[in-house]
């Protein structure tokens, strides 16, 4: 199957090219799950459920990362994202005690517009995505492995790595400044 057809296939929906979707093979389950849980998150009005759906989605993504020969990223994804960040969120939700679901959404003009614009954005991104990798340019390189990754991180990306420390420092100081206990009252 030519890559360019793929976009069309997906865009046109399953009705006509139902068979081709099966071309994804075993991949269709995590993909469907991922998309599905994001959709569920969009539709659900309970914050806690939202967070849990996202955990699911991110976990699926972790799986996909693994399929893309990025095991370390996959691990980080599951550990940091699904594990840490989302838990933090859940914790926050608990803390705010936001148990009652958000009031039912009225279908406003804004939501409608957002949906339309989102669709257009998707179209644009899809076009870009489809054209991003010219057919035949796929040249699977040798996966570097974890060691290679580490080397890369501390040579080539050392500067960026150090900057992340700044970033985290900023985030911590910021969080402390904003939400920390106030001295003297």
């Amino acid at each position, binding site marked *: 199957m030519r890559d360019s057809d793929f976009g069309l296939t997906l865009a046109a929906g399953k009705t006509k090219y139902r068979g081709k979707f099966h071309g994804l093979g075993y991949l269709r389950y995590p993909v469907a799950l991922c998309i599905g849980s994001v959709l569920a998150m969009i539709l659900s009005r309970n914050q806690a459920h939202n967070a849990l759906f996202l955990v699911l989605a991110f976990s699926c993504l972790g799986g996909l990362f693994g399929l893309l020969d990025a095991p370390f990223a996959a691990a980080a994804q599951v550990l940091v994202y699904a594990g840490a960040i989302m838990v933090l969120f859940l914790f926050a939700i608990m803390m705010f005690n936001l148990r009652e679901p958000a009031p039912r959404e009225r279908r406003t003009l804004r939501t409608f517009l957002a949906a339309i614009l989102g669709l257009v954005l998707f179209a*644009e991104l899809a076009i*870009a*995505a489809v054209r991003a990798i010219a057919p035949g340019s796929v040249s699977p390189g040798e996966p570097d492995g974890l060691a290679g990754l580490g080397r890369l991180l501390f040579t*080539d*990306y050392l500067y960026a790595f150090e900057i992340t420390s*700044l970033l985290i420092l900023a985030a911590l100081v910021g969080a402390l400044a*904003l939400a920390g206990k106030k001295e003297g009252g």
Partner: protein
Amino acid sequence: MGFPPPIPPSVLALAPLLALVAGALLVLLLEAFLKRKDGELPAFVAVFALLASAFFTVVSWNVGNSGVYLHGRLLVDNLALLVTGVLVLAGIAVILMSLKYAAHQDMNLGQLCGLLLLAVAGAMIMVSSSDGLVVFLGLEVLSVASYAMSGLKRQDRASSEAAAKYFLMGSFAGAFFVFGLALVFGTSGSLDLTAGLSAGASLSAFPAAGAVGLGLILTALFFKIAVAPFHMWAPDVYEGAPTPVTVFLTIVPKAAGLAVLLRVLLPLLSGETAAAAVFTPALSVAAVLTMFAGNLAALRQKSVKRMLAYSSIAHAGYLLVAIVAGDAPSLVFYLLVYLFMNGGAFAVLVAMSGRGFERASLGDFAGLGRRHPGLAASLSIFLLSLAGFPPTAGFLAKFYVFGAAVREGHILLAVAAVLASLIAVAYYLKIIVVMYMQDAEAAAAFDRDDPALFLVIFLGLLGVLQLGLWPGNALSLIRAAFNAF
């Protein structure tokens, strides 16, 4: 350059940043361990760090230190150094403005200084790299620190609302950047924002994915610079943030964003490339939209602070004109001038505030010309400069930017720009009208014992007049940096 540099170039290249980071850490430590929380020591340390950073920047400049370090992640060139200079100056101004303000508004000066240093460091990282990832990280450092700074008036609903809005919109925009970066990475196989794409741009057809990727990145930068229609967060945030932080927000992220924009777009826009044919009209429209959105919305504002917020949006539009014209010297000069006039104007606003209150509505300025002639005259000069009246620096800055646009053939853009600045004149003058031509209902006394703030105002005046009348040194410095004209 007669002496061999005592520091290796790569260290020197990092030195301005390191100075800031060291300063930030020191400030934070002091803040954490010092008993007296209302002391001004952190501020002095921060200023010192900024001065050190400036010193290293100057040294870097003097030794002609330019090049690529750290595996191409750190790029030191004249643009980086010049903009770094602007950033550092802005940082110093903000700190000096905050000394009394922080105490009056119940803000933690130490945290502010620490965050400010980190933010400046982030901006510095942004401007001294052409690597997409580093730029993104710098942007995030800047952003995260900025979010926090916006909310530093913790008791103030407006301040935290500003922080929340800024954060939400900022992270939204940040995601665009990352996705764009992914596309660029995919198309060019490199994270470098300039090299890969300019190679692609030289092809007859501009690669669509690369274009979209770049477009997404630019979108995020536009957001940071507050280009219409990505600007809508800006008035609210500028208004809600503590005034010195507003000064910071109107100058530093803009300067950093524009520098990156310039770095990315300059290779694309020069010449008759396909990219130029796409980007030039798009950017022109964005510039026009920004100028008019900012200026028109400012017309009806009742709060001077918000008016100046809109004005800073409009100025982003003028700055974008310099980008469209592809004229780096005029952009940098404008940034420098903008630092002085905008900083000065907000500094006067800071001077109007007192313990636990701020006076920012137009009515508060009534009769200021009589009560505080010096303050009113200073604000007038800043406003006239913002409006672009000669012989202030604001005029010269516009002169160079619009002139560059015309030189590059964007006459209609220049016409739109001058018409927009005509609208701007209307509201700048409105403030002057209130100060000089209306009488005050109630003359409220306020604290005039803030030497640091008045130093800032004085330096602002000096800059606005000096750069308006004898900008020779600054201009030739900038021009030499870009080998233009």
